[in-house]
């Protein structure tokens, strides 16, 4: 994050909002030293921002709505800010949220601490200088999830999504995928088959409701030479089953082509689950983990089509979004392959 920076690259309106909010919060003179748009994020715009606040220089990251959401289940920025505060206070390694836009902002945003590290997935799984970090990363990811799943939920419970009354988290997740499939209005036999197969095999649930990060995977995790340096992107946080979080990073696409390393392309399931258990995580049901991994593949395949629709509908013209519709075949192949293996084992 050390590229050449042009402060004037930030839109004037956003710059004015930002300076007004920070100086109102701190009662100190505030100046913009540098701003640089960060890559990535199909639903969120992010900037690296350096501010002079009084006599102190603050290195920050700005997260701002782009107007179109990935999902109706995504949190707004004010709620994400609150969840992040709660998580940090509970000891989760995550960027401290610092300033939240005023209610009248053009598009909601917040500023958080800028942590060092790499988040780009293909670099995290391959960069030579992160080799030592990768050796311990799977274990650290397990440990981090154990901490997240112990975050006291009382202060966020009213603001974030939770399963509807009478549904357990697995039923809720299936319900949500079905709703998206219905909205896409496509006849996809892989989705129909997977939904039926999963519905017939709902995992047992022990009623333990935890804070689920909701997008805990390589790409949303900051890694430096010592390993995990921060858990980012809390917009899909909700209340639910720990297995949902535990399984997501094992979905093949988040291995960034390092297929043999089942956990995010960096490590083994054994190290990961040992980290979770050693950090006080509740017992893990392996069958539930597989169920949630399959659900994760299905959900990601379906989301890819909703992204393609953003282009096709004209809402967000983007060849990248459009191409995701074809990428869904990778997850669909995985779903059928995994179900086939499970069925053969069961015979």
């Amino acid at each position, binding site marked *: 994050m050390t590229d050449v920076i042009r402060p004037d690259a930030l839109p004037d309106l956003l710059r004015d909002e930002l300076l007004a909010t920070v100086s109102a919060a701190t009662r100190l003179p505030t100046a913009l030293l540098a701003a640089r748009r960060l890559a990535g994020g199909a639903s969120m715009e992010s900037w690296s921002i350096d501010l002079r606040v009084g006599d102190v220089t603050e290195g920050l990251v700005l997260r701002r709505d782009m107007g179109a959401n990935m999902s109706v289940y995504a949190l707004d920025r004010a709620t994400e800010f609150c969840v992040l505060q709660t998580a940090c206070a509970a000891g989760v390694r995550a960027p401290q949220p610092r300033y939240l836009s005023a209610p009248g902002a053009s598009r909601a945003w917040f500023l958080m601490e800028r942590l060092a590290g790499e988040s780009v997935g293909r670099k995290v799984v391959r960069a030579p200088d992160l080799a030592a970090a990768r050796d311990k990363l799977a274990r650290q990811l397990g440990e981090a999830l154990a901490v997240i799943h112990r975050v006291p939920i009382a202060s966020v419970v009213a603001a974030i999504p939770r399963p509807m009354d009478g549904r357990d988290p697995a039923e809720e997740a299936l319900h949500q995928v079905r709703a998206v499939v219905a909205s896409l209005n496509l006849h996809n*036999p892989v989705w129909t088959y997977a939904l039926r197969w999963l519905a017939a095999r709902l995992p047992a649930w022990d009623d333990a409701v935890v804070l689920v990060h909701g997008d805990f995977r390589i790409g949303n995790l900051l890694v430096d030479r010592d390993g995990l340096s921060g858990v980012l992107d809390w917009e899909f946080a909700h209340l639910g089953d720990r297995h949902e979080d535990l399984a997501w990073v094992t979905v*093949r696409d988040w291995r960034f082509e390092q297929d043999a390393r089942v956990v995010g392309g960096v490590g083994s399931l054994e190290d990961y689950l040992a980290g979770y258990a050693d950090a006080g995580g509740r017992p893990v049901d392996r069958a539930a983990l597989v169920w949630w991994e399959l659900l994760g593949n299905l959900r990601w395949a379906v989301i890819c089509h909703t992204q393609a629709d953003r282009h096709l509908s004209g809402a967000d013209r983007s060849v990248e979004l459009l191409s995701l519709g074809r990428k869904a075949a990778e997850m669909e192949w995985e779903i059928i392959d995994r179900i086939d293996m499970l069925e053969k084992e069961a015979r």
Partner: protein
Amino acid sequence: MSDPRDAFEQHPSALDLIDAAREHLATRVLPTIADPRLRFETLVATHVLGVASRELSRGPEMTAEIDRGRASLPGAPASDGALCGLIEAGRYDEADAGAALRRWLQARTELSLFAWNPLFLMRVKG
């Protein structure tokens, strides 16, 4: 396959046009782009032209193969919509019917992947 010398108005072919545009992006445009975001988007644009090219090169053959395979499944569904209806009605819940369906879904997905990302299949199938 038709005889390419018979072409009148469609020469060069759609495939020729797509391949030329892809080659132009890959060899002339991409090397000049410094902005990482624009570079990534242009890489994606180049990739999707390759997808379209691979699909067009096998399109009619692939569609025929998919249709034949679907029609030979238990219940002989004539369309994806009909197949989804049969799945929802439990027609493939029984082990052998389920295995037949999965074989076809796998083959079909592999045809899509041939266009989208042939390397994916090489990687995951070893």
